[in-house]
């Protein structure tokens, strides 16, 4: 039963206030894009055992989407941040490095 802090309203939100939204930082591929890129965008997921970035919506709270960095093997949460970004904040990446040296997720490390 996860608890994630909503970066908008500051609530330590119980999992039952949230709805999960899958992998974060997906790049959308639209009409005319390469079929491999499009397949990757829709179906291929990192699904890592370890550090992961994912989307959550504070559905029963302020209604905002946010992103979370979490370890899928221990469920440790490294941090949450607003969804309006294409990459994890540097400070968060450093915080993860302190706890999981050498971590890598897609192009981020």
């Amino acid at each position, binding site marked *: 039963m996860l*608890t994630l802090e909503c970066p908008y309203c500051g609530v330590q939100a119980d999992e039952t206030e949230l709805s999960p939204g899958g992998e974060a930082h997906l790049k959308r591929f639209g009409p005319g894009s390469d079929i491999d890129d499009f397949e990757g965008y829709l179906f291929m997921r990192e699904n890592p055992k370890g550090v992961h970035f994912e989307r959550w919506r504070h559905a029963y709270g302020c209604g905002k989407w946010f992103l979370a960095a979490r370890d899928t093997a*221990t469920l440790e949460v490294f941090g949450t941040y607003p969804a309006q970004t294409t990459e994890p904040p540097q400070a968060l990446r450093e915080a993860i490095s302190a706890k999981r040296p050498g971590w890598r997720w897609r192009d981020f490390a």
Partner: protein
Amino acid sequence: MSTRLAEGGRLIDRSQAVKFTFNGKHFKGFAGDTLASALLANDQMMVGRSFKYHRPRGVVAAGAEEPNALVNLGKGGTFEPNQRATTTEVFDGLAATSQNHWPSLEFDVGAINTYLARFLPAGFYYKMFIHPRPFWKYIYEPFIRQSAGLGKAPKDRDADTYEHFHAFVDVLVIGGGIAGLAAAREAGRAGARVMLIEQTADWGGRAVVDGVKLGGKDAGVWVKDTLQELETMPNVDLRRRTMGAGVYDHGYVLAYERLRDHVPEMDGPRHRLWRIRARRTITATGAIERPLSFAGNDVPGVLLASAVRDYLVNFGVSVGDRTVVVTNNDDAYRTALALHSHGLIVPAIVDARPQGGGELAAAAKAAGIRVANGMAVAVVKGGKRVTGVTLCLQAGEGAPLEEIACDCVAMSGGWSPVVHLWSHCGGKLSWDDDQAMFRPDAGRPPTGADGAPMVIAAGTANGHLATAGAVADGWAAGLAAAKAAGHAGKTGTAPKGEDAAAAAPLPVWLMPQGASYAKRSKAWLDFQNDVKVSDVQLAAQEGFESVEHAKRYTTLGMATDQGKLSNINGLATLSNALNVTIPQVGTTTFRPPYTPISMGAIAGVARDALFQPVRKTPIHDWHEANGADFEPVGQWRRPYAFPRKGESVHDAVMREVKNTRTNVGLLDASTLGKLVVTGPDAGRFLDMLYTNMISTLPVGKCRYGLMCNENGFLIDDGVVARIDEQTWLCHTTTGGAERIHGHMEDWLQCEWWDWKVYVANVTEQFAQIGVVGPKARDVLESLGGMDLSKEALPFMQWADGKIGEFDARVYRISFSGELSYEVAVPASQGRAFWDALLKAGEAHGIMPYGTECLHIMRAEKGFIMIGDETDGTVIPQDLNLGWAISKKKDDYLGKRAQERSHMTDPNRWKLVGLETLDGSVIPDGAYAIGDGVNANGQRNTQGRVTSTYFSPTLGKGIAMGLVLNGPDRMGEVIEFTKGKDVTVKARIVDQVFYDKAGEKQNA
């Protein structure tokens, strides 16, 4: 015989007698008794039958670990099977019956199994009952099921209620023994928000029973003083009869409070399920004594030594007059001493240790009790209760040395910390060789959201079996937990416990150590599931070497006590059989709950009317009052039809269609989603969401729009109205409002966050009523107000104004093919408006209609329905909705997906109309049969029905369906499945069956 002594019993109130029945026999107990203590007080030694062999079973423990004393309790709406007698407090009128026997507890036909035991070893059913094949289902399985199963099934609806509570604490302390009390007090002093829970009805745990000393005081006095201090702390919540059921990720703990089980006449919920978020959880859950594995250790009258002591000290009950104590450690000597001090006879203490015990042993000897070191029980005599024991050397093979007559055996195989809650969420264990037990490995704790340890084990649960260590450990845990939760207030010093000097225990996993097969096959590990030492050895012999394999093969530890007594003995037996160490074998996984919790408590208040929310429109009450036949649509309940007195639902639907087509019908369309989308980029945004061009829609006009997901599949449809330059109102399907609102917010917040668009869900702000049929305009005009003429408000336009006195927004849209106005009024005026329409429509033959009428009318008109024509795999092109896909747009959600080869395949099934040749209705879900079979031998298909109805308007069956190359095959006749080997022929036709020219809706 077991009996109540004339004096003693710290938990019972002898001034308050309690009457109860067991198997219909009337018994007397005292307030404070458990059912087990009260039964023993009445010499009811046998209390049930075991699972597999139906062996006689007596009480073996005094707490949550009890595997045998399970009873059916109560009757009717309060009946409950498998209630543990040792944790059931007696009350006046309690009615219990024993389980798993026929015809009676004393004479059970199933007990034949015990004589067949040699033919029923571990895993026997995997090796037998293979032939003949049908026999398993019809003969063997029913027999096995009937003989297993323990308690009876409840029959009636549960008469009780349940509730939940969400608590947030800094420190949760589970266990109200001395370690838990010390921990809670220290955390409380430090200023933390503390909750302390104890599963039984009283505080103090074993220390009070054993009469140990703390800080120079009797444990009882220390407990009382500590409680007194705790009760004065406003930041501490104390709860008895509350069990820590499970520890989950991120500090989520489930606790199970039994509020009324002991006072059924009281009002209020029976159980309360606590969902606690704790920054730190301290598990001060104590330890459980292990049985010893000797032949006949399952005979009623063989109990854990600590249980014999509990019954004596807590309830004033002597289990036997002559009790042989058999042990491998010092603790059991307390039982001997206690019995002796109460004037009961202890013929011998059989201590497997050649060197014997420490100070307590010396005390026993000093009291004149015979102590036999290096000895073991060879076999217990007796069937339905103990009559004696035969002694032998522990080191030998069991040659009988002497017989001792006795009526009780108190056994102790050492203690195992209760590590369940520590382990639930990943806490690891280490093996303590000195004390022969698994204990929490503080270096590998369960971790929380912050990656830090979230559970701290304390006291005996942490492996500190002696008083001094336990209470100091509890104190330290309280301090550490408070500190970790950010509280560092002024605290006290560690309480000092005092212990007699003890000799080391001797691991004894089989008694005697060289016991023969005959003895091993009578030495029980799991009393409830009838697993013996020989069974685990057989499992090892057959290669079930993993502890999980052995458990599953033998069913060891899978009974209702989940192996609280049997697991360690079982895996020690396995490790011996495999010739590896115990930690190499490891333990099975500990899973919640610690002891079983009621399903009712889990469901909580969500029963009957509160099972799930029912969403109601402003007109819902009218529907209910007027006999609507409802159907659930999402969480709404929409009227399916409005049958009149004596009218069938089907007839009502036919009437509603006819009336709407000829006069006028009234539809409560309030459930349709309504989303306002506004902002400088709203048009651009909607162009991405819909397949159509929305940005070009003129103000005042309406357009039917389609929405797809990124996979290209249709997810919703509805009419979009342009409200002003920057604002659109998007209608969604009934189930779609929240989903589509979320979909929009997702794209706005996560993809196009720089676009200036706001969305609001105003579905429930309005009551929306469809006034439908040739006389719709007449009805509305009779109310007065705005101009609703064809010229002022043509088809697919909307206008704001007044109808009568009502603030109305009128959409001229039609889902029926009739002249139709959908009128939105503020929800607070919805009911009044509905009433006004009914009144005004009386003269025009107005009737309300339900969803089925709506469906038929739209099918007659050839309109698609999301969820019928679509199923999550259908793209707009399949439905010939190419006209609603803008060719001008570079992009919309789903466009890329629709470019894929499987989506542009000319052989995708496409929508057509269908008419049976005989006028009958094609069954729902029917498939069109194709030629031949596929590579897997399945009949090929060439289409399927998506909507099929009897059309009262046309007087025959009509349908829509997706058919291979359908639009190119107009007039062709194909066959649909109708039943087993029955088909129905249908002709492919245009999907619009009614008013193809659209004259009626445009009227």
